[in-house]
Structures are given as C-alpha cells and as structure tokens.
C-alpha cells in the first residue's frame, strides 16, 4: 500500500491566473477553481489571514 500523500499538507503553491475577466486557480494537487474577481480577492485575503495565524501557531508549538 502506498502512502496517502493527501494526509500531508502541500509544500507547493497553487498558481492563479486571469482569464477572460475571471481568476483561474490551478493546484496544488487537484485544485481547479474558477472565481470571480471579488471571490478571488476575498479568498486571497482569507488565505493570507489563515497563513499568518498558522505561522503564529507553528511558533507556539516550537
């Protein structure tokens, strides 16, 4: 049985690009989403905030 890679957090980043007035997010892994500009901005802000919080949690655990 092979290891379940999905149980581990991804170390590679997703790639966002603009296409016909919307934002296309590819990866990491099987992520493939198309978002409106507004949804993309909100997602980016949410990701940024969560990443900052996760960084803090990591410092505390050390």
């Amino acid at each position, binding site marked *: 049985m092979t290891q379940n890679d999905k149980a581990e957090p991804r170390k590679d980043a997703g790639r966002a*690009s603009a*296409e016909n007035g919307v934002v*296309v997010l*590819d990866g990491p*892994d*099987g*992520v*493939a989403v*198309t978002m409106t500009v507004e949804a993309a901005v909100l997602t980016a802000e949410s990701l940024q905030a969560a990443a900052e919080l996760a960084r803090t949690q990591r410092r505390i655990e050390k």
Partner: protein
Amino acid sequence: MLTLNVLRNNNLAISSAERDVLEKSIERTRTLRSGQLAVRQGVEVEVSLLLVDGLMTRHIDTPDGQRHLVGLHVPGDFVDLHAYVLKKLDHDVAALTEVRVAVFPHETLEAIQASNVRLTRRLWFVTLLDAARERQWIYRLASLNASQRVAHFLCEMNARLLAINASDGHIYMLPMTQNEIGEVCSLTNVHVSRVLRQLRESNLCNVRGSRVQILDLGALVSYASFDPAYLFLNAETAARAVAT
C-alpha cells in the same frame, strides 16, 4: 449489425453465435434527439438500451439545478444494463448527440441469463467495465490537476473510440462543447478553454470544434498519467492507445 461494437476489441470477446443471440434479443431501435432523456432517475424500467450511434451521458441533477456528468457512452455501450437488476436508476441517461439505441426488453435478458452462461458472463463484464471507468473518473477528479484531467479524458476517449474504429489513434470526432468537457472534468468552460490552449501550445493535442487531433500521443499519455488497463482492451488496442 446493431451489436457490432459490443465488447469490440476488448480482452473478453463475444463470439459470432453470441452476437447473433444479442441481435435476436433486440425488440426495436429508437432514435433520440440531442438532449432527450432516455431513462429518468427513479422511474421503473423494463428495458435496457444499447447505444448504436452517437454519444450518451449519465448525469445527476443537483438540488441547485446543476448537472453533474458521471458517465459518457460511446457506440457499443449498454447505457443502462444495470437497470436489468436495479429496475430503477439513481441517475438520468440522456442523448448528448442525436443517437440510435437498440432496445432489449428485460425478459429477453432474463432468457439469456437462463440459457447462456457464457454470454451472461460477458454482459456482467460489460457492467463491470462501467464500474471500472467510474472508479477511474473518481481518480481523475481527485488526483489530477485541471490540464491533466482534460488530457486524461481525451486519452480515454481516444482509446474507447479506437476500439470501435472511430479513431485512427490520433484523430477523432468528439461532439462535445467546452462546457460539457468541463462537466466531465469538474471545470468551468473558461478553465477548459485555458487548458485546451495550454495543451495545444505544448504540442500535445489540438481540439478545434469537434475535432480532436493528438499531436504527440506518447507525451499526452505520459502527461495525463493515462493507463488504459481499466478499459480492458485487447493487447493490440491497448498498445495503440498509448502509442507503444
């Protein structure tokens, strides 16, 4: 011959005598226009349909009105052989293009089951092929990125159409919109459009309208991590499907 493509070039062949039995079990043929529903979810059926010409889909309508395509059929596929046992389907079956289907009353399938063990085993094999394809579709959505999903789907269709002589191994007709390819691959049509451009710019394949031209089959197969084993094709066809 209406059953010509049933298990054609699969590794479990149907004999000419068995094909004759199938032909004689057909009650009639029906023609359906593009978009027409052939089998409705939850409605009891007493026949099963063999796709003779065209493409058909299995799909599930979500409560918010979205359609999720969960299966695509090519000529030679029984689109609802599982209805022989289940009687009611958990999904709809519809014509994607104009199609012709051969109608098998369940009583004729019952007669085959009672008298012809070998053919019954082959019909069982047909439904197992359905399940194998569906497992692969789950894998495709769960594990591949957007462009790999589309590449994998195009490789699968090439292999399936190759088996029924509707692809030369590199060029075939796929009368699907980008929106419909998106339904298969769980992508928006904008995303599909972008992916098809990427595949073209990478010299892997060129999709123009309904015409799919695979420019480098070996590279496309490798990129998509496509292994046709789940299609249970005969060795020669499986090899051609991956350009070896």
